[in-house]
């Protein structure tokens, strides 16, 4: 019961977050629709309607009438980069596309103190907001006249600063003298007032907290700009990261995937054939395969680490197991899927059992095996990255894991993009290989 209550709380938190994101999602959908309207408008202007599709009155629900619109794909990808650039202040984008950024440079505000006698005086605080990582001293300012004295402060961008402006005044809080206004606007403990460069708040004890505007751009530690990621990429490609070059990191990951997958296929395919051709083998391995298949390979990581350590052997065993069951099941269904009339035809043409195996059953099962191989490669790639996240000395997953510990978000982002590109390329390669090697797929 307590569990249910907790889960309900979690669900509520998730829904609240989603609800907070709703305006952005709606905005994005509006952009999609706007682009569509613009695109169809341009299309209509440029080309008269004359293709076959335009003759159809029924297009909604006609599956053959729906194809991927290349223009939409291009706009969609470009938009991702534009949004990324806009909210990170990318230099690749013209300035007017930038979302409002954080405040930089010199600014000032005035504060007013009031003594117990009712006297008041005003002094100026000079503020310098500087990029993170630069050492900037607070500017020298003259103290000025009156009981309140001028102050100055240097603040790194995206940070705020508590400043006891009354410390150098002739009368401070010990003398019952308090700050009562900032830039002419009344202020009290717990309140804040807006100033030209951001906000000034007052703590409960009466200390001013100077908060320069952060804008709506993302801090690099959350989301680095595209060019920062790109320069990180060229940096790591040449210099390397954690004692290994980028090629080494990715090469090790790929090496593990390929070796694990090949071993899994070498064992899994004959296993699948045996299961497809013999009752005994089917009965023997069915419970094992059917049990192991739903176990996510990631769940095996701890056991594999205990048994084989974090070296290459452990990872390759893991990927071998990830590929093994998928390949065995694919080969099994490839064999079982052979049309009996093909086997009969081969027999009545004088083929022996071995010849039927070699010329009918194996070629007939290849399309299924290729489908399995594509799935297995995808699973292996996902598994290797996850395994490297847990423990590795080299590899794409290890790279982003370590980078995240040092808050090098640019490396994390770069790693994720590279992992995505490689995963996508693997799938494309497998599809191409399928086209070359089993052109009869789906034509039986």
């Amino acid at each position, binding site marked *: 019961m307590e569990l249910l209550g907790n889960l309900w709380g979690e669900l509520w938190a998730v829904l609240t977050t989603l609800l907070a994101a709703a305006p952005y999602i709606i905005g994005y959908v509006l952009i999609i629709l706007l682009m569509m309207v613009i695109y169809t408008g341009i299309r209509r202007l440029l080309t008269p309607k004359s293709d076959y599709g335009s003759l159809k009155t029924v297009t909604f629900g006609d599956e053959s009438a729906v194809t991927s619109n290349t223009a939409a794909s291009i706009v969609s990808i470009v938009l991702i980069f534009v949004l990324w650039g806009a909210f990170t202040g990318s230099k690749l984008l013209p300035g007017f596309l930038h979302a409002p950024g954080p405040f930089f440079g010199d600014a000032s505000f005035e504060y007013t103190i009031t003594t117990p006698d009712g006297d008041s005086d005003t002094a100026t605080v000079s503020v310098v907001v500087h990029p993170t990582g630069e050492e900037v001293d607070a500017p020298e300012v003259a103290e000025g006249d009156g009981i309140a004295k001028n102050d100055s402060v240097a603040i790194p961008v995206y940070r705020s600063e508590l400043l006891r402006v009354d410390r150098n005044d002739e009368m401070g809080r010990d003398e019952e003298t308090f700050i009562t206004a900032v830039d002419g606007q009344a202020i009290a403990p717990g309140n804040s007032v807006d100033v030209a460069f951001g906000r000034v708040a007052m703590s409960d004890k009466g200390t001013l907290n100077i908060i320069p505007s952060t804008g709506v751009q993302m801090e690099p530690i959350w989301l680095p700009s595209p060019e920062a990621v790109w320069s990180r990429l060229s940096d790591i490609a040449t210099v390397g990261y954690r004692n290994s070059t980028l090629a080494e990191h990715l090469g090790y990951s790929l090496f593990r995937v390929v070796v694990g997958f090949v071993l899994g296929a070498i064992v899994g395919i004959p296993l699948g054939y045996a299961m497809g051709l013999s009752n005994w083998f089917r009965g023997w391995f069915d419970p094992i395969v059917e049990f192991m298949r739903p176990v996510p390979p990631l769940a095996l990581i701890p056991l594999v680490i205990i048994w084989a350590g974090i070296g290459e052997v452990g990872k390759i065993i893991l990927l071998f197991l990830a590929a093994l069951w998928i390949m065995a099941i694919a080969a099994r269904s490839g064999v079982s899927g052979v*049309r009996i*009339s*093909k086997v*009969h*035809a*081969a*027999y*009545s*043409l*004088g*083929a*022996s059992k071995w*010849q039927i195996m070699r*010329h*009918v059953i194996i*070629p*007939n099962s*290849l399309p299924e095996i290729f489908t399995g191989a594509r799935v297995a490669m995808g699973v292996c790639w996902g598994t290797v990255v996850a395994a490297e996240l847990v423990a590795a000395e080299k590899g794409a997953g290890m790279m982003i894991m370590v980078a995240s510990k040092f808050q090098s978000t640019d490396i994390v982002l770069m790693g994720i993009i590279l992992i995505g590109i490689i995963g996508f390329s693997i799938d494309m390669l497998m599809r191409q290989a399928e086209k070359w090697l*089993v*052109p*009869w797929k789906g*034509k*039986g």
Partner: protein
Amino acid sequence: MSGLQIDRLSMRFDLPNGSSVQALKDVSLDLKAGELLSVLGPSGCGKTTLLNIVAGFLAPTDGQIVLNGHQVTGPDAERGMVFQQGALFEWMSVRENVGFGPSMKGMPKAEKSKIVDHLLDVVGLQDFKEKAVYELSGGMQQRVALARCLANEPDVILMDEPLGALDALTREKMQGLVLKLWKETGKTIILITHSVEEALLLGERLIVMAPRPGRIHTEYRLPFAEMGVGQDLRDVKKHPKFAEVREEILGMIWDMEEEIMGRTEEA
């Protein structure tokens, strides 16, 4: 003793629920070498079972098949089979499909390609020999299947509704081709069909089978196959006797179907 003897063949299938189905009962038939037999009957009369037993894919519960003096115990190249469709090897080209039988026997390449070329000429697919079979139309695929069967020089050709999936025009052309091949090669052919016209055109002998249990109901000896060789089959169909026999057989099958329906309703 030459020819094909089907001797008191019975086939019973035991069903998983304990009951059994008598698919064939005491079917006997004596085919001389070179005879063309067509088999008709309502669905469920055991036509395909009979063919599968002759091919050697099924072992009968009783009786035997004797071909050229020896008993049939399993599939063999001496009994070629042409299926309705989908039995071609789509991973092989047309040429490789036709040459499959000779390849299995380990025939030398030159000899094999001579046979393949000749047969592709006969079925009119010389221009398509390097094509993949799935690139061909249904009628062309069945011609490949015929050529593939003939390449093996079988004594008996078994055809299980080989033209069933073709459109009417293609079917007519293929019927002419089957007749031509029968006459030229002198093979014994057993053809199963659903079409009464086809059975009449392509049967020197014709048996009509009755269901439950599957048995031979009536046997005919017909002149149409002989008449049809090299002729326009539409002329053969105009023969007065043709229409007469067709109506008779249609009535016969109609009655059988009626009876099945009646029995099903009773049950």
